[in-house]
């Protein structure tokens, strides 16, 4: 591990971020339980019964995934100045910081989404309509997009209230959630491939945009 950190300094940031998450346990003990509660209550509000019909499962999943991602993205505030000051003391460059931070966020969000989807399948009795490989690729791309946007918004903005942050983030997360629908609705393999390719392009654009603007602003 020592050699790994020495040769690849972003591992230092990655380990730090994971250690902070391990200590705070926000995603595991706050975000997922809240979404689990919403998962149980949502069908009662929408349909007046503990059952989700197949017509609304796509919408249901999008809304709950976005809720999870919003809670995840706003779980802690990054203080721009404090990050720069700590990195200055630790000789961490901007690119090392953002690479480590992005990988750490994906490492936390991806399993959270998988756990949440597993709970959705178990509680709604609606299995995913795609192969496991497609599901993993879609969820991974979705995690990368969410983390890129979340880090970008946290880093460049000094929003006083979480409400404004949630409003900004939700407008970006909703279209991203829409691209996730094929895994729940079951479209033809050709259409799934087109969606996947489109999602890959969107991910590259968002990751590149977040990366460049963060480093410029740093």
């Amino acid at each position: 591990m020592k050699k790994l950190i020495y040769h690849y300094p972003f591992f230092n940031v990655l380990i730090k971020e994971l250690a902070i998450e391990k200590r705070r346990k926000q995603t595991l003990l706050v975000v997922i339980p809240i979404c689990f509660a919403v998962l149980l209550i949502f069908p009662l509000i929408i349909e007046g019964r503990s059952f989700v019909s197949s017509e609304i499962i796509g919408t249901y999943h999008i809304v709950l995934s976005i809720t999870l991602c919003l809670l995840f993205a706003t779980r802690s505030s990054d203080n721009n100045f404090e990050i720069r000051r700590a990195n200055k003391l630790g000789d961490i460059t901007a690119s090392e910081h953002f690479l480590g931070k992005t990988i750490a966020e994906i490492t936390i969000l991806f399993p959270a989404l998988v756990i949440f989807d597993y709970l959705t399948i178990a509680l709604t009795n609606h299995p995913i309509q795609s192969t496991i490989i497609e599901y993993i690729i879609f969820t991974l791309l979705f995690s990368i997009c969410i983390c890129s946007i979340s880090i970008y918004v946290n880093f460049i903005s000094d929003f006083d209230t979480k409400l404004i942050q949630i409003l900004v983030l939700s407008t970006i997360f909703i279209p991203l959630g829409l691209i996730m629908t094929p895994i729940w609705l079951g479209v033809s393999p050709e259409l799934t491939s087109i969606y996947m390719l489109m999602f890959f392009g969107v991910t590259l654009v968002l990751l590149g945009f977040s990366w460049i603007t963060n480093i410029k602003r740093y």
Partner: protein
Amino acid sequence: MSETKINISKLTLSYGKNAFIKNLSIDLEAPSLIKVYGNNGAGKTSLLRYISGIFEGSINEEDCIIEASKGIKLMDNAPSLIEDLSVGENIKFFTKGMLYEEKQQNELLTKVGMDKFNRDIVGDLSSGMKKRIETAILIWKKPSIVCLDEPENFLDKDGVKIVRHIIKETIKSGGIVIYSSLDKETGDFNYDLRIDLN
């Protein structure tokens, strides 16, 4: 020729329209000890943050050459440590994994009297203890330029001795120390330059 030097001319620092440092010029070569003093809001912290490269306000300068072969480190008036991590994890992070083992971390922490607190969370420690951990990191890093922003705040007599040790060691190894303080008394040191920001 010395590798460590600070050459700043006609520096103006401001937040918005209010410039608190106007046309300041500094020309220094290592080894040097500088004292920056002034009242609250005179711009001591901002000047030190500018030299360290983390000042966030508006900068207007004619020329700025800062050379430091082993880097510039700032001990800010608020700690730079990560509050959610333990002392040992902080040492591991700030030394880029070079002090990975607890034994190695304790050897460094012994120098600042903090070896018993390796597993404690930094957020739970007092301001003086946090400052001691930061001094331990500075001792390990041995930077060419050290900016100390009112370093004696929160520190007890032993803590002050450690800060003085850093100053002496940096000067001895051919570096520059910039020391900010509220009062203009020189104390135990002979300063090469004194900057009055009042």
